[in-house]
């Protein structure tokens, strides 16, 4: 079974530029998450999708971050304009939600963003 795919793996931009990340979850996984992991910290949820609907985006800085999941499969996360503090690894995760199930999340390799 193929895992969660993300691209690009690395991105270096200057502040105030825009950047987009792509994620393709495991086939059949209805729930998709975007996490931000700053160096030395645990992953922090940015947004959660259930199919193509947003379940939770309470921690997404909506003035600069946006995300979409058209057709309920792959997803893109965009930052516009980027700030220095956005430097982090952006992790995508997915799982197949069953209300009484395991709930384990499968993570992609992440995109390491450096904002100069």
């Amino acid at each position, binding site marked *: 079974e193929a895992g*969660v795919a993300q691209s690009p793996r690395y991105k270096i931009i200057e502040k105030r530029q825009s950047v987009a990340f792509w994620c393709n979850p495991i086939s059949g996984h209805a*729930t998709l*998450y975007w*996490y931000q992991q700053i160096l*030395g*910290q*645990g*992953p*922090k*949820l940015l947004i*959660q999708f*259930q199919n193509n609907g947003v*379940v*939770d985006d*309470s921690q997404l800085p909506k003035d600069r971050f946006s995300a979409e999941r058209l057709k309920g499969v792959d997803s893109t996360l965009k930052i516009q304009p980027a700030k220095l503090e956005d430097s982090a690894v952006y*992790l995508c995760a997915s*799982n197949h*939600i069953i209300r009484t199930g*395991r*709930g*384990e*999340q*499968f*993570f*992609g*390799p*992440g995109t390491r963003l450096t904002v100069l």
Partner: protein
Amino acid sequence: QQPVQSPQAVILREGEDAVINCSSSKALYSVHWYRQKHGEAPVFLMILLKGGEQKGHEKISASFNEKKQQSSLYLTASQLSYSGTYFCGTRSRNSNSGYALNFGKGTSLLVTP
């Protein structure tokens, strides 16, 4: 909301044991444990759903004390491959955020020969 992990870092010799703790200020529905090696994605270890539940995975096991809102991860007879950063992820009972997790800051584990 972020759970607190302790210790922040631990260094072991191969074959030694370690315990990593995770505590929350909120009532918990479940606790997840992940291990992340440098430059790689977090990898799922186990989930604990019921108070008092204990689970095992090879020589790695965990317990969940629902009343104390705490979980502990036990690594016995550590191997070099156990090195990495261990994160606990928690879901609170009154969470309205689906199955998203709040992760601790992590515990860095280094196993030396």
